[in-house]
């Protein structure tokens, strides 16, 4: 089938199909005479990509998962972090799932560290 037919069948815009090919999410079309031709494998892959997107994955993540196949499921679970900028060259990541009182203590300690470092810098100047 043609690009327009594939897009219509999958319920996406032709642009989306082209974009997915450029991102490596879909294989390029097969050559047929002077034009390009798409088969059922394209339709299947499109459905899979849309399904993964529906689960909240970004295209970059989907590309990674498709390429790795089974291994991908071994990835650790998400762990959100706070990023604290202590100085221009130091950023400290703190797990966001710690207790609030604990986070407050960590913050205070980091604040102190930031002040100490800033003071050291000033003294040097």
């Amino acid at each position: 089938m043609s690009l327009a037919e594939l897009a219509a069948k999958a319920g996406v815009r032709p642009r989306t199909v082209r974009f997915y090919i450029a991102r490596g999410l879909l294989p390029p079309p097969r050559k047929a005479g002077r034009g390009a031709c798409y088969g059922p494998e394209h339709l299947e892959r499109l459905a899979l990509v849309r399904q993964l997107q529906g689960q909240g994955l970004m295209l970059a993540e989907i590309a990674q998962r498709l390429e790795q196949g089974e291994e991908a499921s071994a990835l650790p679970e998400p762990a959100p972090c706070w990023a604290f900028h202590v100085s221009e060259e130091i950023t400290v990541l703190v797990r966001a799932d710690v207790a609030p009182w604990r986070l407050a203590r960590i913050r205070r300690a980091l604040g102190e560290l930031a002040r100490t470092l800033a003071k050291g810098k000033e003294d040097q100047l």
Partner: protein
Amino acid sequence: MTGAAAAAEQGFFAPVEAASGAELRLALQELMLTGKVLPVGAHLWVRHLFRSAETKPVEAVYTFALPRDAALRRFRVVGQGFSVESSLQPVAKAEEIYEEALSRGNLATMARAYRDGLVSLYVGNLKPEETVVVFLELVAGVDLWDEGFRFRFPFTLAPAYHPQARAAEVAPGLGEMELPESFEGVLLPQWVKNGEKLHQVGLSLEVWSPPGGFQVNSPSHRVRVAMEEQGTARVSLAVDHDIPDRDLVLDLETRRPIQGVFGGESEHGKSAAVVIPSTFFGKPQETQPREVVFVLDRSGSMEGRPLEQAKKAIQACLAACSPADRFGLVLFESSVEQLAGNLLPISVETREQAEDFLQRAEAGGGTELAAGLAAATRLLPQGGEVLLVTDGQVFGTEEIVAQAKKAGVRINCLGIGAASQDRFLASLAAQTEGLCRFLTPQERVDTAALELFASSRQPLAWELSAGGDGVEVEPAPPRTVFAGKPVVIFASWEGERGALELSWRGPVGAQRSTVPLEIGQDGLGETVHLLQGAKRITELEATAEELSPELRRKLEQLGRRYGLANRAMALVAVKARPGDTPGEPPKTEVVPLGMPEDTRFDAYFRLRRVADVVVRHKVVLYSLMAGAEFYEPRERRRLPGEVPDPVLMEDILVDLAGKLLPDGGMPGSDEEQRWLASAVLALLFAEAREKRLGKWFRPHFKRLLAFLKKHPATQADPRRATLVARLEAKETFLGPWWDLAERLLAGESIAPEEFWQALPTL
């Protein structure tokens, strides 16, 4: 090796292809902004130079944000041996023409508008080594004030918050963001932490200038200004080129209020934009009690200086309120917090509560602006006004504007940022009859907030309407006129001479006036006609989350009438070149942009998953939670006796003005100390006014003088009475007032002898 070390070894932050790690070859190489800027809007031609360095055909997609009140008119595509012009088509038809041309192997170009004023320019089937130039013609509005205007043009696009958006760092220093389906598949740019290797931007603009004194500045770029002929200045970059990491902002300031009729005759008849300065409607009158809710954005992208300045601004605005006023205070990020469940009177206690509440606020989280505004409108069931301080970095703005419009409160917006949310905040204010200012990160938030707060305080005129015999006025002018903000009316008419009839209600009752529509030989008819169309389209689109069939029909109609693209009408052009053959579709390349200079890359693109996922695709996924910044730029200091620089002067004044008590006087340990502190601040305000600083402190100054005048100590002492009377008569006095001000800020007291010694003439 860690991800960061690997990144460093590969040359940090250069735009790289996620899959191969190879450096990106940019399809868009240059962007040049030309055209003319008038007080009623700008007519622009943007030159985009595309060049492919790939070995296969590519489709370059450049997504940008429209300025306020803007619309695309047409484009011309120039390549080797050919030049084609776009045609205006309904979106579905344009997409079809474009896709068909691509499948035949032809060069296809399309410009299409999406929600939030996002526009994508698609250049498809760019052959290897081929160079194509797209000249895009558009019109855009400006932010006009009585004594000048500000023109903003987006060179970059800020990533923004949407609850369903997904964002990640896909390669070191390269961020991607995807929007949900309701955004019709718009391809956002990739954001590059360091934009140095991106396309170059430049400009050469003709800026209208009035006879007499004026000044052209840019708070965003280093520009060169040259006088050309009478009435125009040529503005260009002072350096050869720049990078796309912030908007262009141009300011024109005049000595006298801008007024007049801009327009002319074109094939569409006679059209004009009439500028009526606010001073035409009189001076602000005595004020009535005011109900106002301050809404402060404390989302992650506001982190640092913007948030600190905004807090101070709100305290200073509170100090400008009188005891009869009532206020509310709302902070929002992903969630909403408010000071109290109802409006509070202005008193020492409530002001202290507000201060504590603000002090505790830290930046972090998303930008649930809609929830913040909803909380504010709940506090104002009878109507009232809101002062919103935000960077406006949200997607899906139509819903927010629609809700705000329904709520029936006036929203004054103070925007902060280097990029592109001007259109949204201008719409939000216009649709709720409020005022809007948008600042660059280099400018002060606190004084701008005070200025906005002072001008929105008391309308000069209500129920303004405009019309006339055979004169069509579209869109309807704002119904309320505020001090400092002129009214611009777009009119078109038939016949030799037209007259614009105005009617409004002012403090003295119903009033009328007639403005003759006299157009000169400037040949601005076409430009003004387009600006009128763009304004009407923007108004119609401002609240449209989805296009209903009826709205689509209206937009198609407006698009055809004015020859302007919008969300329902797109521009498309096709060129069949010799040797074009059908084949594989071109490879889509989205043009990357620089992060706006004031937005931290990791405010949007940060650890989403702490995992060793530096695998073949080098996808390091970051979380969307905000952090905190501990380090601060070192403070400015002043030596005793030294007159501070204007920036520090304003710092001191904002801090002291924030301390004014509800009775209009300064705090102090006893009545004598209160009197002295109040007198010192009044002396400082007088000096600041002399230096043309701090006109926004007028309400504070007025309240201070009123407090001093009725103070028993003034009435009992002729020397004090003379000082107050002479201050009222706009006199200034030399003295160590800045030293005393810093002592007041440090909480120290002032010795009466010291104060009077500094005033030997009294």
